């Protein structure tokens, strides 16, 4: 890039004063490629020009009302909130109500690991979210929005499960890690077969492989025993790593 023009020649260029033709061309050619000098030119503009641009910018300044709270909320949770909250509440309440029915193991404990996954499925369902088609065509649709919505699910679900578990005596020490592990697995699988399908697959697998046998046999299943915690921690880390390394796969949801 050529040397920057002097402030004198920029000022004369701005005010339209006489400049030798060669200097004029040099200044103009330089301005095309130099952002700093375009800023200097803007500062050197004569008062009648700055008054005009200031007036135009003032007219164009946003005047709308400040962003309301809902706007911040939908940046995290899906805007189709009502069915999603209702489902979460229903599942937890049903588990608390069922608790006395099962012989030995707690229903809250058995269901806890798949509640967040169901929330994720609802957040990305075409049938539940009316604007799903629109959302998935925008640049924001991707891993970041997936993680934001999953986080919102966990923020709602985990306290509900804690209360439910406290009422029925299911300690979070048993279900918290499996809960996060299943969620991470579903997200990782979602990069391959789609989030809704992955969430439903994970939930069905859990129902078939863990809840079914536990209801038939009774007792706390091995996968929920404290001894399984290291395995679940490994699953959580592995799932998170898979999500991280395949982040581009979430562009199409």
């Amino acid at each position, binding site marked *: 890039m050529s040397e920057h023009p002097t402030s004198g020649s920029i000022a004369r260029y701005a005010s339209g004063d006489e400049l030798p033709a060669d200097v004029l061309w040099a200044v103009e050619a330089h301005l095309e*490629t130099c*952002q700093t000098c*375009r*800023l200097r030119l*803007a*500062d050197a*503009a004569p008062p009648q020009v700055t008054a005009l*641009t*200031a007036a135009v*910018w003032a007219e*164009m*300044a*946003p*005047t*709308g009302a400040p*962003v*309301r709270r*809902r*706007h911040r909320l*939908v*940046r995290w949770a899906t*805007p*189709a909130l009502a069915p999603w909250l209702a489902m979460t509440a229903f599942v937890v309440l049903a588990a608390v109500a069922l608790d006395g029915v099962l012989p030995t193991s707690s229903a809250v404990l058995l269901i806890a690991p798949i509640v967040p996954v169901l929330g994720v499925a609802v957040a990305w369902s075409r049938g539940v*979210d*009316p*604007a*799903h*088609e*629109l*959302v*998935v*065509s*925008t*640049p*924001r*649709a*991707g891993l970041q929005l997936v993680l934001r919505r999953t986080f919102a699910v966990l923020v709602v679900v985990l306290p509900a499960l804690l209360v439910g578990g406290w009422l029925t005596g299911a300690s979070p020490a048993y279900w918290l890690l499996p809960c996060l592990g299943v969620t991470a697995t579903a997200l990782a699988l979602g990069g391959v077969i789609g989030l809704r399908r992955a969430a439903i697959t994970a939930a069905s697998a859990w129902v078939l492989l863990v809840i079914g046998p536990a209801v038939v046999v009774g007792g706390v299943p091995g996968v929920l025993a404290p001894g399984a915690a290291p395995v679940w921690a490994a699953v959580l880390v592995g799932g998170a790593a898979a999500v991280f390394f395949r982040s*581009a*796969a979430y*562009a*199409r949801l």
Partner: protein
Amino acid sequence: MARVVDAAEVAPTGYAWQVEATGLRVRAGRTMAVDGLDLRLGRGVHGLLGPNGAGKTTLIRSLATVLRPASGTLEVLGEPVSGRLDLRRVRRALGYLPQDFGYYKRFTVREFVEYVAWLKEMPKRDVPGAVQRAVERVGLADRADSKLKTLSGGMVRRAGIAQAIVNDPEVLLLDEPTAGLDPGQRVRFRELVQELGSDSCVVVSTHLVEDVAAACTDVVLIDKGRLVFQGTPDELAAVGGPDDVGDSPIERGYSALLGGAW
């Protein structure tokens, strides 16, 4: 406040066509709804015509980067969108009105358009002004703070057009945008589309031949997932003879090309 014009704003484009498809095949469920389509679209208003089930919606959904093409190449704004790639740059320059435009009933028009602007990653300071401008362009300024559930069908459609144009898209995809608009609104809509088509690529899928005649610079006729005809409305009208079915020259051209397959 001094504003600096960024070099990127005035940079020449690096592609010949806003949309370029070669041998494009896209699956819709189990059927191959778009099957070997070759298409090039530049600036202007392109009317996408075809009988029901011709693959219009599937084509628009693949242009909107919602569906992944099964094979063939598809480039939007010079960037391939067929593989597992970063689609964010293309998506920022897209506007899309789906055929079944779904919306959140409790949102006001302004809230909804603002939410879409956020989804489209628009710079924060530009959002309020852009939303106001988009709402004004579709003639909803007086209802901007009404909830969407209180609006009539035509107004909801216009809110849908507002969310599509809020980011001044370079490629605007409108799937059946005139459904539910009354004749007066339809005339205003055509004017708006023509205005938008002067500096971007607008693809309007429609089954109303008069929309095409009035607003489009270019007609794309597809049938069974393939391109049957591409040209100006006058060229389409010239194809039809007096023996073909139809009330207007364009309708006669349409039925001549499709062999009466209505």
